[in-house]
């Protein structure tokens, strides 16, 4: 075992050593607990890093400094934010359903953390490695809608209620193209296990699924739907802090609000992790000559790049209108995801050279045709009609 390999396997061997210290009867429990604690610790740290990256990055992209007061270059800003959130008053509305109001943020964070358990973060670094990993991920992802509804209902506030319904409508709408974008991967690799999906992609970057005719489009669809699914800008209109009264978050303050905030980031990281697993080769290095670098390094490097793209998009694009949001999901991405499934089927059953031409012939005209439909019947440069305003 070389030094690089031992670094690569360090998390695994550390866990084995810790488990070995305990009596055999509780080893199974300790193994699960250690995985859980490790996931929470690593991703909570990453949450702080992502928040800092977002605030600094957004600032620079908007020609400001961003936070630069707390600690050197403002690096301790997440700590200050955390302390502020912890010591703020926790307000519960008088008529709120106390139990639901408390449970909603907890039940939002828990599945987001649970989703990390099936992501392969390195060679042999999957907390739960079983055959239905992908299915489990989507099942867990779907359960977050319930806690959003709990938040809206438990607050006993009509604005929260409407806001939560709006959020649920968005999440359910985008779940469809999201899952349909993942289906071609399952179709081509023939497995639902995340470990085997990573293994099916080679150790060279042109062997990854993003460089296949069906994968390139599926990745873009997946990324856009991931933005919508994690309520990130430009699809953050359930919250829309600058326009609405924050939707289902209206009645939350203090640490419960921080939990929602945390859940948003965990969700973003989990879905980015899945995008890496499905399309970007998981923990594998882009070139075989680089494969001596530990797998977990590549996973987290790719994760930070994807989070950076999320931040970049947030700094750039304005928020969509509710009907535009629904149009984009149902009239654009859903038919295209289905068409992409056809492309994937063609790729699976025909010689390799047919793949790219078939994808271009099928997808490019459809993207432009459906894009034109999205614009509506209004001619370019014509007068905008406000249906409900006049």
């Amino acid at each position, binding site marked *: 075992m070389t030094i690089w390999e031992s670094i690569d396997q360090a998390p695994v061997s550390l866990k084995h050593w810790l488990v070995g210290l305990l009596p055999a009867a509780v080893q199974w429990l300790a193994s699960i607990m250690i995985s859980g604690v490790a996931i929470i610790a690593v991703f909570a740290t990453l949450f702080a890093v992502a928040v800092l990256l977002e605030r600094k990055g957004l600032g620079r992209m908007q020609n*400001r400094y961003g936070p630069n007061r707390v600690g050197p270059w403002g690096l301790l800003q997440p700590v200050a934010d955390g302390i502020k959130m912890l010591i703020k008053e926790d307000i519960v509305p008088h008529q709120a359903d106390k139990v639901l109001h408390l449970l909603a943020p907890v039940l939002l964070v828990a599945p987001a953390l649970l989703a990390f358990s099936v992501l392969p973060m390195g060679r042999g670094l999957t907390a739960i490695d079983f055959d239905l990993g992908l299915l489990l991920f989507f099942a867990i992802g779907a359960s977050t809608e319930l806690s959003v509804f709990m938040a809206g209902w438990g607050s006993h506030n009509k604005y929260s209620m409407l806001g939560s319904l709006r959020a649920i409508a968005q999440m359910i709408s985008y779940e469809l193209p999201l899952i349909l974008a993942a289906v071609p991967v399952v179709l081509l690799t023939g497995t639902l296990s995340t470990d085997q999906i990573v293994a099916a992609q080679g150790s060279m970057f042109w062997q990854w699924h993003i460089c296949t005719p069906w994968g390139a489009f599926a990745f873009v669809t997946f990324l856009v739907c991931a933005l919508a699914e994690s309520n990130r800008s430009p699809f953050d209109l359930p919250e829309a802090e600058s326009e609405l009264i924050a939707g289902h978050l209206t009645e939350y303050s203090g640490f419960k609000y921080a939990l929602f905030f945390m859940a948003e980031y965990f969700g973003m990281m989990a879905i980015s992790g899945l995008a890496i697993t499905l399309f970007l080769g998981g923990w594998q290095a882009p070139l075989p000559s680089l494969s001596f670098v530990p797998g977990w390094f590549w996973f987290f490097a790719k994760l930070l790049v994807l989070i950076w793209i999320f931040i970049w998009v947030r700094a750039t694009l304005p928020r969509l209108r509710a009907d535009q949001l629904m149009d984009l999901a149902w009239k654009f991405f859903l038919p295209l995801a289905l068409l992409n499934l056809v492309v994937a089927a063609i790729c699976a059953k025909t010689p390799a050279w047919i793949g790219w031409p078939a994808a271009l012939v099928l997808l490019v005209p459809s993207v432009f045709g459906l894009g034109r439909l999205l614009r509506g019947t209004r001619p370019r440069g014509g007068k905008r009609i406000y249906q409900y305003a006049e």
Partner: protein
Amino acid sequence: MLGTGILKGLAQTALNLVGTFRKPAERLVTVQYPEQKITLKENFRTIPFLVYDGDDPEKGLRCTACKICEKECPPQCILIEPLRDANGKLAKHPKVFDVDLAICMNCGICAEVCPFDSIKMDSVYEITADDRFAGLIHHKEQLSKSNEYYHSIKPTEATEVDGRLAEEQRKADESAKAKAAKAAAAAKAPAMKPAAAPTPESPAP
């Protein structure tokens, strides 16, 4: 084409990101406040202050305690008590001049109505206090500021005011002189009058 707008936008934000590091002076608009401060415009105004001439804030105070500003102040934040001498006669000087900054809305009406160019608008903005009741009531001593200070914050306006005051002073001096001359003349005239005066009343004999 579909999506080009998005790509253009992404390119622009990326340009901003790089630009803030390469040319910070051009890109970054932030003023790092407690260390850096923007230079204030001359017409920037916050709270009122009282102008005094010369070196003594008490003696040189232009205020005559006429109470016009106190009456005109929309939120009623000014309190004036005129100084009286032993006989209860007004000394044309304020004994108490308080401005409650918690109430003041920085409208500048007091400065507009003041006929003696005594009350003017200041440009200080760091006026927080530990005690939000007593600490925010500024007394005559805190409000009195020299004419030099007025010149330093609002040179144009202060010069104009000085010119006007000097002109008024000149006119007042002239009219006083004229009056004095007239009075002197009048004082002389009655002395000559009886001799020169005809006696129209006296009936013809």
